[in-house]
């Protein structure tokens, strides 16, 4: 486990977090390459099954990044997905995959520094939690 490098899937809203990631790049801020970004038209578009499938296919951590409260381009997709994230956290806990592996973060398009900071924080947290337990037995994700 010493060399464990987590795979983290970040579902990023096109209108905020994805642009913030872009800004982090423009500002030459580095963030861990463990974070794999999936751009979505709104964080509210992220369904429970997308999160579950990410874990099932071997992600060690997942986070959904949406707009700040009240700033959703589609009114309240970010608040809807926040509740969904909490629901899936409980389901993950129930099946023995720590719900802490899933997180909701909120930011605006201008918060490039915050994007890089959160990406680093979450990567560190997942690294300390260790690999997704579904792959430690069968070694799925290593394939």
């Amino acid at each position, binding site marked *: 486990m010493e060399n464990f490098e987590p795979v983290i899937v970040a579902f990023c809203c096109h209108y905020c977090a994805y642009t913030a990631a872009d800004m982090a790049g423009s500002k030459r801020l580095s963030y861990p390459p463990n974070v794999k970004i999936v751009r979505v038209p709104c964080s509210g578009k992220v*369904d*429970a*099954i997308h999160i*579950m*499938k990410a*874990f*099932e296919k071997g992600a060690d951590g997942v986070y959904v990044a949406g707009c700040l409260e009240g700033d959703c381009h589609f009114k309240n997709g970010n608040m809807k997905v926040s509740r969904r994230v909490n629901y899936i956290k409980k*389901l993950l806990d*129930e*099946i*023995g*995959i720590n719900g802490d592996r899933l997180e909701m973060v909120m930011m605006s398009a201008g918060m490039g520094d915050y994007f890089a900071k959160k990406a680093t924080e979450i990567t560190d947290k997942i690294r300390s939690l260790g690999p997704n*337990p*579904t*792959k*430690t*037995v*069968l070694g*799925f994700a290593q394939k």
Partner: protein
Amino acid sequence: MITAERKPMEELTEYVKNHDRILLVGCNECVTVCAAGGRKEVALLASALQMDAMQKGKTLDITEITLERQCDPEYIEELTPHIDQVDAVMSMACGCGVQEIARRFKNTPVFPAVNTKFMGASERQGVWAERCQGCGSCLLGLTGGICPIARCAKRLLNGPCGGSSNGKCEINPDLDCAWQLIWDRLKALGMEKQYEEIIPAKNWVSGRGGGPRKIIREDLAE
């Protein structure tokens, strides 16, 4: 609609612990509307069961199907091509669906994935509340369209009881007193006189008191 809630994962994984090939069957009717056993919930449960199995060193072969209805034999028939390829069926429908599958397929175990709760209505997005107990002789015409059987904790036919205070029930401060609701409604309709009428003791034979019930429409029955 008939409402339901998914059972705890611990119970579900215990059911399928000795089975590797599972047919996970959802229902497109009530349990889809109350977000307990529709296509989405089938996909989520399949993923959860799979991840649980992976941690125990195996993988499951899960076939996901959501039928139009699980309480009609015509739709259950759609499972026939799959039944020989699986060790067990897990149904996300209400108890009616589970039993219809068990009745049709004698040699394959069927497990319920949800706890069937009650006949209810959506109070708002994500909230369902009990509205009917299927007592078999509807009183709603006497009670202003509010059912004291389903909504009064004591099923009082002539209420309220002494536990009603400020319009709430003594068993739960968030629960409206059904008889307060009935009175308010009758008053709003100018039907206060109706409230004065004593409703006689109910004959529960039309409900579960008469044993399992059946409806036969002779013009339709073959």
